[in-house]
């Protein structure tokens, strides 16, 4: 993605990608090396900078067109940065109960916020965004769940960087959301390492989150092909937080909740692999955006997290 320009970058957008890989010496089992790819080092602090840039550039907006996306998370913040620097307007549709800091950061980056009904969760935000886009052709909805530029950004960026930096990759682990990270990265890493094991870490949502969801709302993102995954593991909030805390305590890495889940799975996979194997764990973001969450110090982690879907 990013072009090398020496020590001086012409734009913040040139600093997207080329994230470092760091060995997790304290968290790797004996004989196997787990490497963390630190996506929190992207300009807005998450892996979503990669796909935001790729999707906006692929959309090739005409004068008068504006960007629209249902998101209250990292993707919104990444799009807000890219939209600003590319000179586009951005509207984010998000549930009315999204946290104040999420709204504030998007507003500060210059995005317009439209509220969707709180009780309809992220599905409600998607529905409202689709209605708005259908009723006004000014809006271009990028929709990361179905946008081919999403996995492509990871094929050309994340995956290519891993292949460049590590001569041998035996397993890659990433969080499963849109599926873009896993699909794109795995496709590229497989070209260089045909036997690489591709593992997805999935969140086990708390009951209050799941209660919002009916089977009729079931959704598999069009860009996700589950048959391309070798393993798909469910990780509880409590397991994720144990790993988030271990990353900080033992490796000095302040990471987000999904990164904890990914490290949890990476350690499980690493235990199963032969000596000399290399495992790459893609850590999607840093922990800064989660500091107001209760789980850092809560005695009952699961309970403190059950009302939120964390990635």
């Amino acid at each position, binding site marked *: 993605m990013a072009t090398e320009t020496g020590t001086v970058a012409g734009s913040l957008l040139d600093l997207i990608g080329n994230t470092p890989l760091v060995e997790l010496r304290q968290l790797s089992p004996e004989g196997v090396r787990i490497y963390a790819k630190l996506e929190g080092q992207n300009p807005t602090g998450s892996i979503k900078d990669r796909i935001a840039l790729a999707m906006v550039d692929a959309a090739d907006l005409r004068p008068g067109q504006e960007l629209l996306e*249902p998101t209250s998370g990292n993707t919104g913040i990444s799009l807000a940065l890219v939209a600003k620097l590319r000179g586009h307007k951005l509207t984010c549709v998000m549930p009315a109960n999204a946290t104040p800091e999420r709204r504030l950061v998007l507003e500060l980056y210059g995005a317009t916020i439209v509220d969707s009904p709180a009780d309809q969760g992220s599905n409600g935000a*998607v*529905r409202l965004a689709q209605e708005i886009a259908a009723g006004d052709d000014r809006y271009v909805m990028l929709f990361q*769940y179905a946008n081919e530029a999403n996995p492509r950004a990871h094929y050309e960026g994340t995956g290519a960087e891993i292949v460049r930096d590590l001569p041998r990759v035996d397993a890659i682990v990433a969080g499963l959301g849109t599926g873009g990270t896993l699909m794109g990265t795995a496709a590229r890493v497989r070209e260089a390492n045909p036997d690489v094991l591709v593992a997805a870490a999935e969140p086990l949502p708390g009951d209050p989150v799941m209660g919002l969801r009916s*089977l009729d709302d079931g959704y598999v993102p069009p860009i996700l092909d*589950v048959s391309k995954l070798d393993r798909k593991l469910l990780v509880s909030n409590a397991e994720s937080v144990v790993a988030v805390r271990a990353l900080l305590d033992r490796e000095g890495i302040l990471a987000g909740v999904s990164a904890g889940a990914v490290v949890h799975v990476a350690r499980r996979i690493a235990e199963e692999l032969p000596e000399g194997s290399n495992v790459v764990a893609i850590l999607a973001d840093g922990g800064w955006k989660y500091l107001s969450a209760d789980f850092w110090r809560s005695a009952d982690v699961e309970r403190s997290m059950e009302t939120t879907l964390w990635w």
Partner: protein
Amino acid sequence: MSVVRVPPVLREEAGGAREVEASGATVRELLEDLASRLPALGARIYEDGEIRPYVNVYVDGEDVRTRGGLDAPVRDGATVVLLPAMAGGRGH
């Protein structure tokens, strides 16, 4: 015998229970046993000998679709989780 965790959306079909029991050495046997005990629940997750499209079945934390599907082994005492297929939203 295995413990099957039921998501909120399917608890009515499970008589309100958060967890139910079922037995079987494979996912197919386990789901058929579950469907015979709780036909309403079975009908929502298992149809014509297949797991329904928007249902994910996990055995000891792993999605059975990447472990051999209905032929995936289930150990005695396993924890089985049923979940609606999920992502940020409904696209179409």
